[in-house]
């Protein structure tokens, strides 16, 4: 018996750490383990690494200076800090927060939480591709709006939002723009200055860095209300001894990404489009979710009618292929993905969704292997389904 092939197509959920990153982290666990707040040599060595890491992250997103980068424990923490930190710090400006209906839960839930603290939150609509409705943004952006928080690109459907246009509209009023670039950063060039972004969330693992590290860019001059109170690290806005090894790994990942992103993204776009065509063209009632061209290079999100996503996910897993689904049956909540529903899909359409996210390790052979498997999997499940039209089972 030959060993079973294993293919990983779930990079939006988790990525392997680049070996060069692992190497960059190791010294800070066993040798240079000082606390950056200490004044002795060990401490100052750690401090130096911390500040150099800040510079590397700043360079990746073209931030004006390294001090604009705040290290956190995750993109979730960065999103929470941005939303609660800005809304509370600037509540004298107004109590209105605008966001989109295709945000990650780490934006959705802090926004919902703020409604219990006297803020009103508007979830702006998107079109059938998941692109923000700019007229709705203009209409809802009142003088009382303190913060607009929009995802750079949604990791589930891959659609890239028109950040430049959004920024122009938001800055026509006295509101701040926070952008969650967790899924996008590392795949597309982000320039906080050119794009007019006030706060930006990024994550280490999404660039093949270690988990447990994220960052929040805060434009010079903008202030926050801290969410973690303690020893006053990170300019007093995020207390807690810095995770130097993780931060050094994050910086190395950012440095590699800055160098290698362009050719890698070009390679992925080709693979992505080959994958989308292979998964949809040969199979009837197969559709692409999200925008056909304005999409992240790693994202292949498709759906098949008459069958359910978790059963497709399991079928692929039995063949050694790891993917995700937006079906309720694959979720903890028993609700299909709010992102798919926001694009106007019916519940039963959203249940049939399947998400493949590509990474550095994936090849054209991997793509072709799955493209070869899919018709059989869909056919088997459709033969079982009472919803399948008779002619498809012939």
């Amino acid at each position, binding site marked *: 018996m030959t060993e079973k092939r294993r293919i990983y197509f779930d990079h939006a959920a988790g990525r392997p750490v680049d070996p060069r990153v692992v190497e960059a982290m190791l010294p800070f666990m066993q040798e240079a383990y000082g606390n950056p707040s200490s004044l002795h040599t060990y401490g100052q060595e750690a401090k130096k690494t911390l500040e150099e890491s800040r510079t590397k992250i700043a360079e990746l997103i073209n931030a004006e200076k390294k001090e604009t980068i705040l290290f956190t424990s995750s993109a979730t923490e960065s999103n929470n800090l941005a939303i609660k930190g800005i809304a509370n710090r600037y509540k004298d400006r107004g109590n209105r927060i605008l966001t989109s209906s295709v945000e990650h839960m780490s934006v959705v839930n802090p926004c919902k939480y703020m409604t219990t603290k006297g803020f009103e939150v508007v979830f702006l609509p998107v079109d059938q591709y998941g692109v923000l409705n700019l007229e709705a943004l203009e209409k809802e952006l009142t003088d009382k709006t303190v913060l607009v928080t929009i995802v750079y690109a949604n990791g589930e459907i891959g659609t890239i939002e028109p950040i430049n246009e959004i920024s122009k509209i938001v800055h026509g009023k006295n509101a701040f723009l926070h952008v969650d670039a967790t899924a996008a950063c590392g795949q597309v060039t982000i320039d906080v200055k050119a794009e007019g972004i006030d706060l930006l969330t990024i994550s280490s693992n999404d660039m093949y860095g270690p988990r447990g590290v994220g960052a929040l860019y805060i434009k010079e001059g903008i202030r926050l209300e801290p969410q973690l109170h303690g020893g006053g690290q990170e300019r007093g806005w995020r207390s807690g001894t810095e995770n130097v090894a993780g931060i050094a790994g994050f910086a190395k990942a950012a440095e590699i990404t800055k160098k290698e992103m362009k050719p890698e993204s070009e390679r992925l776009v080709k693979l992505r489009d080959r994958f989308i065509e292979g998964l949809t063209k040969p199979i009837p009632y197969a559709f692409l979710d999200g925008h056909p061209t304005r999409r992240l290079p790693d994202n292949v999100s498709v759906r098949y009618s*008459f*069958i*359910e996503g*978790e*059963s497709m996910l*399991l079928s692929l897993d*039995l063949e050694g292929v790891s993917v995700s689904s937006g*079906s*309720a*049956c*694959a979720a*903890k909540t*028993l609700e*299909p993905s709010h992102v798919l529903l926001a694009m106007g899909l*019916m*519940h*039963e359409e959203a*249940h049939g969704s399947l998400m493949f996210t590509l990474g550095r390790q994936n090849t054209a052979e991997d793509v072709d292997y799955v493209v070869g498997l899919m018709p059989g999997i869909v056919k088997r499940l459709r*033969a*079982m*389904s*009472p*919803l399948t039209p008779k002619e498809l089972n012939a």
Partner: protein
Amino acid sequence: MYTQKVMEHFKNPHNMGEIPDADGVGTVGNPVCGDLMTIYIKVKDNRLADIKFKTYGCGSAIATSSMITDLAMGKTLEEALKITRGNVADALEGLPPVKMHCSNLAADALHAAIEDYYRKQKVKQEAKQ
């Protein structure tokens, strides 16, 4: 997440298909929720002579459908009506808690098919009289 037993039934479900001249048909669930199940039965001498299923849904929906056909095959109608959702889950060596309600519908579908059989019998009886 799923037991070996669930995966076996998911991979190779037993008695999948339709019975065109079924004596009773029961459908439960809703595609909006992600699960829809139809059970077809043939009855001979008050026993389930054949059972088949068609299911739209997740892994546990398919596995419970397959399992109910095993549990009920050859049973009297009275015995089959006593099979519970819990019996199906136990026979599969357990289901994840979140799946216990939403996709563990097979017992309900079987009961609906038997009730459909009784209803049809009654109509036949009345037609004769």
